[in-house]
């Protein structure tokens, strides 16, 4: 049974399909907001299949083994994290006290593989992209962690399932986490490398950034990992910051879960429609000057609320 959980639902198959579906939703919304027609629903699937059919090109100077295994590493890390995130209720597949830390670290692994992938490619554009990935990583990761951990602090548990259950029982407590929700959305733009923070893959500057040298199946794996990352990140935000209606019938909760994820993806699409890409120094400035202090403010608010509550 756990094999079904891991491979089918809410594991790998579900994640892949929903990841591609969300990519379609994102692209379609982005297109609609820009007065374009946008792709048909099967476009992400078609892209994936097409990439799978292409040959793998490994750069001659690149580190060949690393270059080949990194996409799978990213995919595995990101697919693993879903087993700790509740999808059809307040209970995840597995949970233990501290799993929020594990999930946040699992979510950091793809970013690190992007860096290593760029480094292993040994091409100039990839190298610059890799360095930018890492620079950006240091800017958004701290606020992201603080936002999630503040919410955990208020809930008094470091397990995502318990946090979810806590906010579900204490309906109005989620209002205290509004700042955290905003911070995590901005940090997610950085994590998912979307405009205005798509600096590591700014095509007009450094071609494809980290992925310049990737092609064929390996690129398809990276693309899939990024798609799944969207689902997992959105699911995590939904579980922690949008805890409504979790005690209904599991099927209804699942529908609600999809609605929440769609809402988050729509918000991300909107943000990337209305902004221009920042420069890396401006991005770091912005994160440390505004986003990090805001997440500290969230932490202080939650500590105070926690004190009053008891």
């Amino acid at each position, binding site marked *: 049974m756990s094999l079904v959980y891991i491979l089918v639902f809410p594991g790998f198959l579900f994640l892949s399909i929903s990841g591609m579906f969300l990519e379609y939703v994102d692209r379609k919304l982005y297109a609609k907001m820009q007065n374009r027609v946008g792709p048909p629903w099967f476009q992400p699937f078609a892209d994936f299949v097409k990439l799978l059919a292409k040959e793998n090109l490994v750069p001659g100077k690149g580190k060949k083994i690393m270059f080949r295994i990194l996409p799978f590493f990213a995919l595995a890390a990101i697919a693993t994290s879903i087993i700790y995130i509740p999808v059809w209720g307040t209970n995840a597949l597995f949970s233990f006290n501290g799993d929020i830390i594990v999930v946040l670290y699992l979510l950091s692994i793809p970013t690190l593989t992007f860096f290593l992938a760029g480094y292993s490619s040994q091409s100039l554009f990839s190298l610059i992209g890799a360095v930018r990935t890492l620079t950006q990583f240091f800017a958004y990761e701290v606020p992201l962690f603080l936002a999630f951990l503040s919410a955990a602090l208020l809930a008094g548990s470091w397990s995502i399932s318990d946090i979810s259950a806590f906010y579900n029982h204490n309906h109005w407590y989620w209002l205290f986490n509004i700042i955290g929700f905003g911070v995590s959305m901005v940090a997610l733009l950085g994590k998912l490398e979307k405009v205005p923070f798509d600096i590591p893959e700014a095509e*007009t*500057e450094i071609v494809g950034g980290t992925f310049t040298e990737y092609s064929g199946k390996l690129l398809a794996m990276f693309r899939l990992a990024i798609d799944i990352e969207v689902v997992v990140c959105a699911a995590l935000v939904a579980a922690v910051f949008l805890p409504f209606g979790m005690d209904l019938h599991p099927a209804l909760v699942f529908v609600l879960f999809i609605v929440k994820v769609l809402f988050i993806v729509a918000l991300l699409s909107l943000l990337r429609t209305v902004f*221009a890409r920042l*420069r*890396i120094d401006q991005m770091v400035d912005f994160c440390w000057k505004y986003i990090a202090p805001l997440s500290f403010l969230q932490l202080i608010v939650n500590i105070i609320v926690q004190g009053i509550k008891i």
Partner: protein
Amino acid sequence: MEKIVIPIGPQHPALKEPESFRVILEGEKIVGVSLRLGYNHRGIEKACEERTYVQDLYLIERVCGICSHSHSTCFIQAVEEIAGIEVPKRALYLRTLVGELERIHSHLLWLGVAGHEIGFDTLFMYSWRDREIIMDILADLTGNRVNYGINAYGGVKRDVSKEHLQKILKAMDTLEERTKYYVKVATEEITLIKRLSGVGRLTKADVEALDAVGPVARASGVDRDVRRDDPYAAYGEVEFKVITVDNEDVYGRTLVRVGELMESYSIIRQVINNLPDGPINVRVPRKIPAGEAFSRYEAPRGEDVHYVKANGSDKPERVKLRAPTLANIKPMLKMLENYNLADLPIIIAAIDPCFSCTDRTISIKKLDTGSSEIMDWKSLRQYSIDWYRRKGIKF
């Protein structure tokens, strides 16, 4: 920090045309740029000397895909000056009309490209959608979306009808409203301002020293516009402002271009309202008398200059043209110094480069021996035939 050299071009997503930049980076900072022109050389000047004036007109129009009317008008003005032809007034007005429509479509195109370079694709999609309106008008008016072919020696080829003019006036209202929205975006959108202001600085002194032209010069506060300083076509009879700002950066260049859009709408309205009646062209002999002339034209990208020398036959003796991009290339290299790699695409885009217009001469440099030679038209043609033969392509 170690210096690295990265190649931007000849093929690169930031460049719409092949041109090679070798950028020396220190981290993300640009410490030096070397440029190699010549990837788009088509030998147009030489080709003009081999063809008749009538054929040349079509060839010159194809110097640039965006400002095709600019080049053809500039060339035709020089030839008409040598031949001493008085062009009917209605024709001059129509040339002005097409010229301004072209400026609008070029500036809207630029706005989109600039948006794309800084990762603001929404602006790109919006302004290119609006550009379609102009393209449709041009297709209606001249029969073509680009390379309009409306100019003819002694006037223009096609007349306009009342319906056309009404349609254009209506479109101007729509576009004016949209442009006001872009002005609002440009002055309020915070990421846009952050990316554009202070980037690619070029002081007024630099402009004077390096001879920048067009919007690049006007964005540094240099009040220079051929339309006003040396009026041609119908520009002497219309009222318009020359937009200048003192920002001296990419943001200023954006403001100048958006401002010029508004002026173009007003010029078009005046041209349509004051359009004189009368013939649209006069007959011009095929053989142009000996003489030489120099013609200036304010293309959307800046001052375009053509020189024509006639020898009394039906073919010109010499044609020389200098596209505005060539004048702006040296200032561009100056602008790039000490900015980030991330600023490079937008700084290059800010001069609105048109490299295929720019490549005029080519000298063949042999990389192994370092010797260089200049080829004439015949040997260049022979070289290309041989080159393809060697590749096994027969024609």
